[in-house]
């Protein structure tokens, strides 16, 4: 383990995870803290696939929803204990990732649109009234039997720690470098001996796994939800915007993005989401036009090594 690796752990992972563990004792709104966890993990999941390979996952929520429903189905039909249910949720998301692997053959915009369509298709299947006996269709699931906000919150913190560790690894390893080489120029990378297809597939499945894990933990934490809750496009959009705003391909960027923007979102108040929608829409436009590499690029341009 290199000194840089340790430095990144000390500078980002320890304070973020520490805060996530301490805050519930000081601040009583645990749902809000949990939502922060969810977005911290999702933004890093977007970071893994978009930041390191350049594929824009517009339908990232598909994995989140698959995780939530994998968990719910295992708990409802197999009476699995929550931690086993989470394995099913993670497996469902990875399975969806495997099914969608052919999409990685598409470039740029085509991938983004196809991924969005795939997430909407997954939602259509889950919420279809014809599958009511299996998924409860549009009427939503209730898993009140396993409701345990304390434990599920701490499992969420664990997922966050593991995700941060993975991104720190990508940031400091040969594998992460080879992914960025693929992103910059796949043909030169393959000529330099980088396994292009394997690299991007691994990154894709890892990001699916991250989203699936936090999706199943979300299902456990809230315990009662509808298909449109866990397949809400808001998850994809927020995760992408937060990651982009902070700056991808770093560990700090997505964390900064979530803390600043999701903080702002809650400050404005969820009761009038249009105002936040207006602000983040305008922010996205300004970002693309004036700061396409995110906040951290301001520091990186000055030669600062941002974790």
């Amino acid at each position, binding site marked *: 383990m290199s000194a840089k690796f340790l430095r990144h752990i000390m500078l980002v992972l320890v304070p973020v995870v520490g805060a996530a563990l301490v805050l519930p004792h000081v601040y009583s709104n645990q749902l809000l803290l949990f939502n922060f966890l969810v977005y911290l993990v999702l933004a890093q999941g977007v970071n893994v696939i978009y930041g390191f390979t350049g594929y824009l996952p517009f339908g990232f929520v598909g994995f989140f929803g698959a995780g939530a429903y994998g968990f719910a189905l295992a708990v409802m039909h197999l009476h699995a204990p929550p931690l086993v249910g989470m394995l099913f949720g993670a497996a469902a998301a990875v399975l969806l990732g495997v099914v969608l692997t052919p999409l990685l053959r598409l*470039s740029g*915009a085509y991938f983004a649109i196809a991924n969005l*369509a795939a997430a909407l*298709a997954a939602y259509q299947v889950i919420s*279809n009234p014809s599958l009511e006996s299996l998924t409860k269709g549009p009427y939503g699931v209730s898993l009140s039997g396993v409701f345990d906000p304390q434990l599920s919150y701490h499992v969420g913190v664990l997922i966050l720690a593991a995700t941060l560790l993975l991104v720190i690894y990508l940031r400091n390893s040969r594998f992460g470098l080879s992914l960025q080489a693929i992103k910059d120029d*796949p043909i030169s990378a393959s000529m330099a001996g980088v396994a292009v297809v394997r690299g991007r597939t691994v990154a894709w499945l890892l990001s699916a796994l991250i989203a699936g894990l936090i999706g199943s933990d979300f299902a456990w934490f809230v315990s009662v939800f509808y298909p449109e809750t866990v397949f809400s496009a808001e998850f994809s959009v927020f995760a992408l915007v937060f990651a982009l705003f902070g700056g991808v391909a770093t560990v700090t960027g997505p964390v900064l993005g979530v803390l600043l923007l999701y903080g702002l979102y809650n400050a404005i108040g969820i009761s009038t989401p249009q105002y936040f929608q207006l602000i983040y*829409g305008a*922010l996205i436009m300004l970002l693309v*036009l004036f700061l396409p590499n995110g906040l951290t690029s301001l520091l990186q341009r000055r030669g600062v090594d941002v974790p």
Partner: protein
Amino acid sequence: MLTYSITAGLVFGLYFCLVGLGLNLVFGVMRIVNLAHGDFLMLGAFSAFWLYSLLHIHPIATVLIVTVGFIALGIPLYYLLVPRLLKAKDPEMLSIILFFGFSQVIEAITTISFGPSDRSIPGRVLGTAPMHVLGQSLPSAWIVSGAVSAVAVGCLYLYLYRTRLGRLTRAVMVHRDEALATGIDVNRVSAIAFGVGLALAAVGGVFAPFMLGSFGPAMGVDINIQSFAVIVIGSLGSPMGTVLGGLIYGVSEMLMQTYFSSWAGLLPYVLLILILLIRPSGLLGKKVRSA
């Protein structure tokens, strides 16, 4: 049942051609993805609604108003957003994000101004008696909408193939840099194409209340996916391929609704993904895969 589905599908198909056409024109000329396309369509629907309910202007007249209005809106918008975007490292990818942000802005402003609820215009505005086409009787609002769509497609064809500006537009579509090198004012041509693209979306919006039942500020996302399905089936970057895509989409949508109605909602997504994977260039088109 079958002939009814196919006839109605063809009429809807003409409408979906119109819905996809503007998106494809913008992509063809600028290689950018206007993810706010559905929101411009929504603005067209709101224009039709307000002009009808406040000033009693007939939707057909609204078509002329929004055509002029949205071309006039699109040209400055082009100069504001696109040249800067095209200078970026990966304009196609960034355009998705930029115009997604724009769509959020439009949706938010519309919701703040008019509230989130859905609206509609009664179909009788476009005629009350059902009309007979190919032995089937269809609501006249559908026929009128389909006919106007056909006229709009025809006008775009005349513009692209029978005018000097259209010839220049097609030159930019084929090769932007070469067009620039031969002295074409690429920005001017693109700006007009951008305006025409928005106008086509808005004209589609005028008939949205009749073809889609109702409309509201949040309709953009669905329209975007449907438009994408339509233009991907035809071919990205080829506006006239959209006509084929629209007709296929319209007919298959109607067949789904007749025979597998509970799964009809899946159609645009599945069609989009399958065609991208099997024949990513669309039914009439060139190669787009990266690896």
